[in-house]
């Protein structure tokens, strides 16, 4: 079957008017909104930072300037590598991995509990509702709530002082405790639901059988539930990792003064630095690195792309 045949079939099935409409809308989405902007950003990241009148002029040639800047730093700097930006980049990725693992550990028991306690429908529904409600609250407001709790005169510090456990407020913001708590909080739901959906379809008899044969509680999870839930776990981890590495609001609000998030550097190049090509180059680096990490993880755990988003 060749392409022209496929098109003829398509239009026969949908009719010319509807078929054209669907095709145009999908093409607009895929080409104009998804593919072209990414390509144009890629192209843009290889160009010099020029004032608008010189764009498209003789000086507008391709360059690796911005990628070099990320790796080597400004020309003539003291260090041979761009320690600051690369450090932030590495720390962001490490922190994202940390938050992802933390979320997995927190969410797996809940997802398992919710999925396996189908019998008592009422309570489960209420718990699910309670899970969803925080997710509907604005991201900024959620971060703000954590600032109220962790701030210098926040709830925890005031409570500890009143109880006489400490004399001076602990700086949770500088220690990044607030940031990790806030980031983990923000994406809990995206970890729970994929795992929940998969475990829900697990036949309870399998667990019963394993138990009857004398498997311990931990062994049942390790050998039966987790292998079965692998697609859900990996899709949850993928989403949480990508969103955490690309988070901007929580680091801006909860991040300590000494710790930057890589997205904040990108933001600075766009809004304060005014060097768009450099910001675009940094964004490309972030995107490509995240995709590589996720793909290699999926290869490692033998999970397919089609499992994501189910």
């Amino acid at each position, binding site marked *: 079957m060749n392409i022209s045949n496929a098109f003829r079939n398509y239009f026969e099935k949908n009719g010319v008017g509807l078929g054209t409409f669907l095709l145009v809308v999908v093409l607009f989405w895929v080409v104009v909104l998804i593919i072209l902007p990414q390509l144009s*950003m890629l192209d843009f990241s290889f160009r010099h930072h020029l004032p608008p009148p010189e764009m498209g002029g003789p000086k507008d040639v391709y360059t690796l300037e911005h990628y070099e800047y990320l790796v080597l730093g400004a020309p003539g700097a003291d260090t041979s590598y761009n320690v600051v930006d690369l450090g932030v980049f590495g720390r962001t990725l490490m922190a994202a991995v940390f938050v992802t693992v933390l979320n997995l550990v927190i969410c797996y028991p809940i997802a398992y509990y919710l999925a396996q306690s189908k019998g008592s429908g009422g309570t489960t529904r209420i718990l699910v509702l309670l899970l969803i409600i925080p997710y509907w609250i604005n991201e900024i407001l959620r971060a703000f709530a954590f600032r109220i709790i962790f701030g210098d005169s926040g709830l925890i510090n005031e409570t500890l002082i009143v109880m006489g456990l400490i004399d001076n407020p602990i700086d949770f913001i500088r220690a990044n405790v607030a940031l990790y708590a806030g980031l983990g909080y923000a994406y809990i739901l995206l970890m729970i639901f994929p795992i929940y959906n998969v475990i829900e379809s697990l036949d309870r008899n399998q667990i019963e059988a394993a138990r009857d044969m004398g498997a311990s509680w931990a062994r049942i999870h390790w050998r039966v539930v987790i292998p079965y839930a692998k697609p859900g776990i990996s899709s949850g981890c993928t989403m949480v990792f990508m969103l955490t590495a*690309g988070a901007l609001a929580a680091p801006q609000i909860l991040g300590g003064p000494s710790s930057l998030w890589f997205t904040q550097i990108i933001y600075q190049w766009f809004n304060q630095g005014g060097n768009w090509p450099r910001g675009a180059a940094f964004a490309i680096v972030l995107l490509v690195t995240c995709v590589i990490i996720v793909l290699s993880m999926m290869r490692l755990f033998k999970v397919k792309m089609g499992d994501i988003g189910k």
Partner: protein
Amino acid sequence: MKSENFLLKFFLAAYLIVFFGYLLGPLIVMSFTAFNSPAFPKLTPWECLTFEWFDVLAQDERITTGIKNSLFVGIGTVILSVVMGLAGALMLTQIWPKMRATYYTVVIAPILIPGVVLGISTLVFWDRISVLLGLGSGSFLQNGLFLTILGQSTFIASYCMLVFVARLQRFDTGLTEAALDLGATNAQAFRKILLPFMKPAIASAAVLAFLASFENYNTTTFTFGKFPTLTIELAQKVRYGIDPSISALAFIIICLTILGALAHEVYRRHQQLALNNGAPLSAVQGSFQLPKFLRGNPAAIVLVLIALGGFTTIWFAQSYSPKECILDVRQQKQILQEQRILEIKRQRMEQNKANQNSQSSAPAKSSTAPQSPGKGAFGGVFAPDNLDKKAVPESPGKGAFGGVFAPGNLDKATPPDKKSD
């Protein structure tokens, strides 16, 4: 075996409590700070119940224009992403099988691409287009609302598509074929068969899209231009100085969310209840009888209770004025401040006394020895020989109370008071 079971259950309960505490605690704390009077949002110490932050919020023009922009962007995004998501889902069912995996990866990718990247690419792309077309700066292609709608729709359409795909899996294509056989045109079959079937999915996709658009920050922060949405305004406020009016807004949003969730739950249970009783679905929809609707429907009861509570609160807020309490707290703070000053003065006096005693003769020293500093609030103020010491010129013009009641002290007491807020 039994004891192990019990232990497991205990741990599970403890875990559930901790988990939901983590999940809901911050929201509850934030809601309560909206009603506390200090200018920095905090729960402790609790000072006065106040509603003034809601007033402050209502008078904040940036917030109100932010809400308007958010609504505009939200509606635009809903329309665009629902249409694109539906078309994308339909295309997925019909696409050439060899292309399907690639196509799926491409349309699902926007969910995984960091929002920052989406915002930047949208901004850069349309900027270049507008340069290519020779439009000056400020053309509609660089308009913040236009860019924000496009940027958000890019990934929100993917969410919508997932909702539609789930629903389409249960669609019986035989229905469309039957309609076509009976002489319907393709457009008619689409409008009369497929769309009604997709209606619930369209509704939930629209709600999802609107919420996602309303709370989006990462993409919008690059594209908003001159039209900051509510989320952008909030972020600005939170980053550069916070006050409880944000808590007030959060409280309103949380209440709306809970009401929406409860209303949905009521509707769902109401339907299910009637279905269990054997009534056809068409009879259930639209008939809204109060007593029946409350029976066996805890969500409805909670909803009614919350509504009642809300009205009572509003009525209470009309008549209640926290002025007295705020004055009271201010007074208490002043008293505290004065006590602190008194303490310092007293300590200084003790010190002076000690200095003098060491200089004076031994018997005088023995008379003051038991009054070591820090014993009782009034230390040695009322000791008999204090009256003599008052005359010592070291504290000129100040009485035993160290001038606490001097008129100037009230002013002195207030600035640090404000700072501590």
